[in-house]
C-alpha cells in the first residue's frame, strides 16, 4: 500500500515538476508557447535615441482631423509639416499644416502654424501676421525658393484649392496662388519642388490622392464589421498627378499632359525625386496607395514615361500592389545609384527596392525589413543616419487606418513608431525601446519630418499625429560617430534641390542627395547630413549639379556645416 502510495506520489511529483518547469518556461520547449516577442535581429540596446520635447520647446500644436460622426476619407490622411530655414539665420523653423473640418467653414484647429526657432532650442509661434495661417483643410507642404530670391517659399496642399506662400524674407509670406497660376482644387497630398527641366528654377510636382467629394462619400466596414474609413479602391477614383513648370517670372504653367503624366493614374501619397536610371535627368517616384507605384523616367526632353512595371518597382516580389504611403530614395548600398524604401499598410512588408541599374530588385527581406513593421501601418519614413555610424538608419511613423479593438489608448488608430539601425552588414535591425524613446509614445502618427533642429550634428524628427500633439524627437544617441553636413546652394543662394554629393569615406563611396521632398506630406531639411563613424575627415567631395556639371570641393574635417556654393569649387 505504502509502496503504491509512494509510486503515485512519485508520478504526481514528477508530473508536477515537469509541469512547473513547463510553466516556468525552462524544461519543455516542446509544449510551452514561447511568449517572447523579440525579433531575432532587434538591436538589444535600451538606451533611448530620442527624447520628446515638443511642448517643453514651445512647439504646441494639436492636429485636428475634424472627425465627428461620418467617416470622411480625408480625415484619415492627417496633415504634415516642414522643417525649413524661414529667416536665413541658419537654423530650422517649423511650419505645421492643420486639417480642420470638412463639414464646417470654421477651422477648429485655427489654421496652419509657423514657429520660429530661437536658436536656443525653443520655438516661438510667429503665425500671427505672418500670412501663413491658411485655413483650408490642410494636407502636405513643399518648401523651396521658387523665385530664386534667396529665401524659402511654401506650397501647401489642401482638400480644395492649394496655396503658394511667397516668403518676403522678413518673416512675412504673401499668398500668391492666383497670380502664380496655381491653386489646384482637388485633394492634394504630398508635393515637392523639382527643377525637372534643369533650367535653373524650381518647378512643382503635386500628388493628387483621389477624386473625392463629400457628396460621393461611401460607407465601409472594417475587419471587426463596424463602420470605418473606406480604402481608396472602394471609390475607384484614382487621380492624376500634376506637374507645373516654373515660367521664371513668378508664374507656373500646368504641363501635366504635355509631360506625359496623363498616362497613369494612382492614389499618390508619397513622392521622391532622383536620377534613378543615372542618365543625368531627374526622375519622379510616386508611392501609390493600393495600386501600382509609378516611376516616371525623364526622357530628357521635358516628358516622362512610367516605367515602374518594367523596372520591377510597381509591385512587390509576389506581384501584389501594396498600399504605398511614405517614400525615401537614397543610395543605401554605396553602389552609386538610388535605392528606394516605401512603407505600407498593416500586414504588408515594407518595399525596399535595390537599384540594379536597369531594374529594381525587391530586397526587403535581404535587408532585414521583411517582417518587423508588418503589425503597423506606416506613413512617414526617412533613411537617415541618426547615430552617425556612417550607415543609414530608418525611422517610420505609424498609425492605423482602420479601428482596432485592442488599441492601448483611447485612440483606436494609435500605434507605436519604429526605428531601425543600419549596419555595415547591410541589414537593418529594430532599435529598442520601440521607436527609440524611453517613454512609450502612442498616437496615430502620420508625417515624419527630418532635420537637425538644434544644429548639434544629429538629425532630429518632427512627427505629426492625427488628432493629437506633435512630437519633436530630439536626438540623444549616446556615443554618436563623427559627422559632416553640407548646404549645397546655387549661385544665388537657393538650395540646389536635386544635386548630388559624393565623397570617399575610407574605402566606401558615399552618395547623398540634396533633397527636401520625401517621407509623407513633408518638407525636410535639405542640408546633406553624413555620419562619419570614426572618420574625422572626408575627401574628394564632389557636387553633381543638375545641369550635368561637377565640382570638387576638397577635403574637410568632421563636425562642421560646410556651404558648397556653385562655381566656388574646382572642376
Amino acid at each position, binding site marked *: 500500500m505504502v509502496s503504491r502510495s509512494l509510486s503515485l506520489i512519485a508520478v504526481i511529483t514528477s508530473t508536477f515538476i515537469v509541469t512547473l518547469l513547463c510553466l516556468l518556461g525552462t524544461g519543455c520547449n516542446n509544449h510551452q508557447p514561447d511568449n517572447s516577442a523579440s525579433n531575432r535581429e532587434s538591436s538589444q540596446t535600451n538606451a533611448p535615441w530620442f527624447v520628446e520635447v515638443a511642448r517643453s520647446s514651445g512647439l504646441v500644436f494639436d492636429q485636428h482631423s475634424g472627425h465627428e460622426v461620418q467617416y470622411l476619407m480625408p480625415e484619415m490622411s492627417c496633415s504634415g509639416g516642414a522643417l525649413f530655414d524661414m529667416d536665413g539665420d541658419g537654423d530650422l523653423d517649423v511650419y505645421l499644416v492643420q486639417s480642420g473640418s470638412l463639414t464646417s467653414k470654421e477651422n477648429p484647429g485655427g489654421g496652419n502654424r509657423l514657429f520660429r526657432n530661437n536658436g536656443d532650442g525653443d520655438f516661438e509661434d510667429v503665425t500671427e501676421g505672418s500670412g501663413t495661417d491658411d485655413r483650408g483643410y490642410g494636407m502636405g507642404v513643399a518648401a523651396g525658393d521658387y523665385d530664386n530670391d534667396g529665401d524659402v517659399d511654401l506650397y501647401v496642399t489642401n482638400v480644395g484649392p492649394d496655396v503658394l506662400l511667397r516668403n518676403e524674407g522678413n518673416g512675412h509670406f504673401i499668398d500668391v496662388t492666383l497670380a502664380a497660376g496655381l491653386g489646384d482644387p482637388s485633394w492634394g497630398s504630398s508635393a515637392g519642388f523639382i527643377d525637372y527641366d534643369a533650367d535653373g528654377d524650381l518647378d512643382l510636382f503635386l500628388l493628387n490622392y483621389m477624386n473625392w467629394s463629400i457628396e460621393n462619400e461611401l460607407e465601409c466596414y472594417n475587419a471587426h464589421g463596424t463602420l470605418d474609413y473606406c480604402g481608396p479602391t472602394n471609390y475607384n477614383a484614382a487621380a492624376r498627378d500634376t506637374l507645373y513648370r516654373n515660367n521664371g517670372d513668378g508664374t507656373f504653367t500646368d504641363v501635366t499632359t504635355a509631360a506625359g503624366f496623363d498616362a497613369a493614374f494612382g492614389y499618390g501619397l508619397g513622392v521622391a525625386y532622383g536620377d534613378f536610371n543615372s542618365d543625368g535627368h531627374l526622375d519622379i517616384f510616386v508611392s501609390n496607395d493600393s495600386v501600382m507605384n509609378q516611376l516616371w523616367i525623364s526622357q530628357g526632353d521635358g516628358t516622362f514615361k512610367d516605367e515602374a512595371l518594367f523596372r520591377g518597382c510597381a509591385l512587390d516580389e509576389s506581384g501584389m500592389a501594396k498600399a504605398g504611403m511614405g517614400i525615401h530614395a537614397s543610395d543605401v548600398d554605396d553602389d552609386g545609384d538610388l535605392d528606394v524604401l516605401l512603407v505600407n499598410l498593416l500586414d504588408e512588408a515594407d518595399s525596399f527596392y535595390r537599384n540594379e541599374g536597369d531594374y529594381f530588385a525587391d530586397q526587403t527581406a535581404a535587408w532585414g525589413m521583411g*517582417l518587423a513593421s508588418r503589425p503597423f501601418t506606416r506613413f512617414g519614413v526617412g533613411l537617415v543616419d541618426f547615430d552617425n555610424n556612417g550607415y543609414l538608419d530608418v525611422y517610420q511613423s505609424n498609425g492605423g487606418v482602420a479601428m482596432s479593438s485592442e488599441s492601448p489608448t483611447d485612440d483606436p488608430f494609435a500605434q507605436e513608431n519604429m526605428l531601425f539601425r543600419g549596419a555595415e552588414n547591410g541589414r537593418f535591425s529594430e532599435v529598442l525601446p520601440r521607436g527609440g524613446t524611453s517613454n512609450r509614445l502612442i498616437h496615430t502618427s502620420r508625417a515624419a519630418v527630418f532635420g537637425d533642429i538644434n544644429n548639434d550634428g544629429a538629425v532630429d524628427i518632427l512627427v505629426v499625429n492625427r488628432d493629437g500633439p506633435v512630437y519633436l524627437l530630439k536626438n540623444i544617441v549616446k556615443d554618436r560617430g563623427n559627422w559632416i553636413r553640407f548646404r549645397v546652394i546655387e549661385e544665388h543662394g537657393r538650395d540646389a534641390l536635386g544635386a548630388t554629393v559624393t565623397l570617399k569615406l575610407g574605402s566606401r563611396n558615399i552618395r547623398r542627395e540634396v533633397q527636401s521632398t520625401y517621407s509623407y506630406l513633408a518638407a525636410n531639411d535639405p542640408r546633406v547630413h553624413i555620419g562619419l563613424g570614426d572618420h574625422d575627415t572626408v575627401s574628394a567631395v564632389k557636387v553633381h549639379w543638375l545641369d550635368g556639371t561637377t565640382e570638387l570641393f576638397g577635403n574637410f574635417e568632421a563636425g562642421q556645416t560646410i556651404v558648397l556654393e556653385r562655381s566656388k569649387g574646382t572642376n
Partner: protein
Amino acid sequence: MTGSSKLKLAGATIGLAAIIGLSWVFLTASVDPGPPAITNFDALDVAVSARIRKLITGVENSPRDAVRRGKLGMAYQANNVRQAALTSFQQAILLDSSEPKWWYYLAVTRSQLGDIDGAISALDEVISRNDQYVPVHWRRGQLLKAQGDWDMAEKAFRRALEINPNEPAALVGMTQIKLQKKNPREALTYLKQLMRILPNQPFLYQLLGQTYQQAGMHEKARLALARGKPDKPQWKDAWLIELDQYRVGFSAQFKKALRLIDAGQLPQAIALLESLRKQRPNDVTLLNNLGAAYIETGNFSTAIRRLEDALVDHPNHFGTHLNLSSAHEKLGQFDRALLHVEWAIRYNPTLARAHLIHGKLLMNMDRSDEAIVAFALAQKFDAYDIQSLVLSGQIECLRQRWAEALPFYEKAIERDSTDVEAFCGLALASMELGQLDKAQQALEKAKRLNPNDPFYLQVKRRFDNLRR
C-alpha cells in the same frame, strides 16, 4: 519498518502532499485564468460581439476545456482581435499541447503581431505533431524567407514539395529563393512548372519578368512584366478555411458573397446578398453588387430594381450608374444605358472603365466618331488598357479606314505583345493596305499565341485568298 522510518515516511508524505497541494493551487491559477476579453466590445459588429461573448461564457463554464479556449481564439483571430486570440491559443495549448491546430493558429497570430521567431517555433511544434500538413512547411518557408534566411527557407519549401510536388505556394517560394540567390536558370525551372499548374496567372508573369531581368534578358522581361498586372495569389490552407468559419457579422458575410461572385457561384451569392439586404436595405455597396450579380445571371429587371434602390440614398454613386447602364444595354434600352454611363462619367470623370463602356455603347449605336473619342479617354486614364485601342482599330476597319486602324493596333501591341486580336487586326489592316510582309509577320505572331483563335483563322483565310 522502524518507527524512525515511519516518521520519515510520514514527514515525506506530508511534505509531498504540501507540494502537491501547492502545485494544484499553482496549476489551477495557471490554467484557469479567465478567458481574454477585450475592453471595447463596441468596436465590434453586434454579431461578432455576440459570438465572442457566447464563446467566453463557454470557456468560463468549462475552464479546463482546451477546445473551447481554442475556438474562442479562432473567433478572435477570424474577426481580427489578435492579442486576445494569442492569449486564447496559448491557454488552449497549456491545457492540451497535442493539438497541432492550436500551435498553427498561434503561429499565424504571432506572425501577424510581429513575433516571427515565436511563429516559427510554433510551426516547428506543428511539424513535430503533424509533418504531413503541407501549408505548415510553406508558411514556415515564407517566414524564413521574410527573415532573409534563404537556406532554411529553401529547406522548408523543399519539404513541402516532397509531400506535394505541385504545391503552388512552395513552388513560388522556391522561385523567389532562387532569384534571391541570383540563380535565374533554376528559378525558371520552377516557374515553368508553376505555369503549367496555374496558367495565365498575372503574378507569375511578374515573377517571370524578374527572372528574365536577372538573366539580363531585358526585352523578354519587358514583355513578361507587361502581362504581370497586380494580383494577389491565394494559397489553399484548409486549417485557415476552418478558422474562416468563425468570421461572422455583416461585413464578413458580405465579403463571403463577393468571394462567391468571384468564384462564379452567382445563385449562392445572390441568396446571401438578399438575406443581407434585409439587414441593411439601403447599403449602396451591397445593392450595387447585388444588381451586378443579377445582371450576370440575366435577370435584368430585378437588377435594375436593386440598382435604382441604391441610387435613392446615393444618387451620385458612379458604380451603380455603370451597372444600370449595363443592365439597360442588355435590354436594348440604349438611350437609358447612355444616360447612366454619362452620369457615371460626370461623377467620376477619370474612370477609364466608364469611358470604355461609354465607347462600347456608342459603338453599338453606330456612333463611331464619338466611340473613338470615348476610347481615347479610356486610354488616357488607363495606360494599360488595351481593349479601347483594339476596339478603336475595329471601328476603323469596319469603316475600311485601314491606315487609321493601323496605329491603334500597333500601340496595342506595344503595350501588350500577347494580344491575339491586336495582331490579327494589324494583319488585316496591313494586307488591305498592300503591306503583305507586315501582315504575314503579324499573322505568324498571332498563330504562335493561339492558332485556333477564330479571328486569326478568318484573317488567315483572307490573307491566303489575297496571296493567291
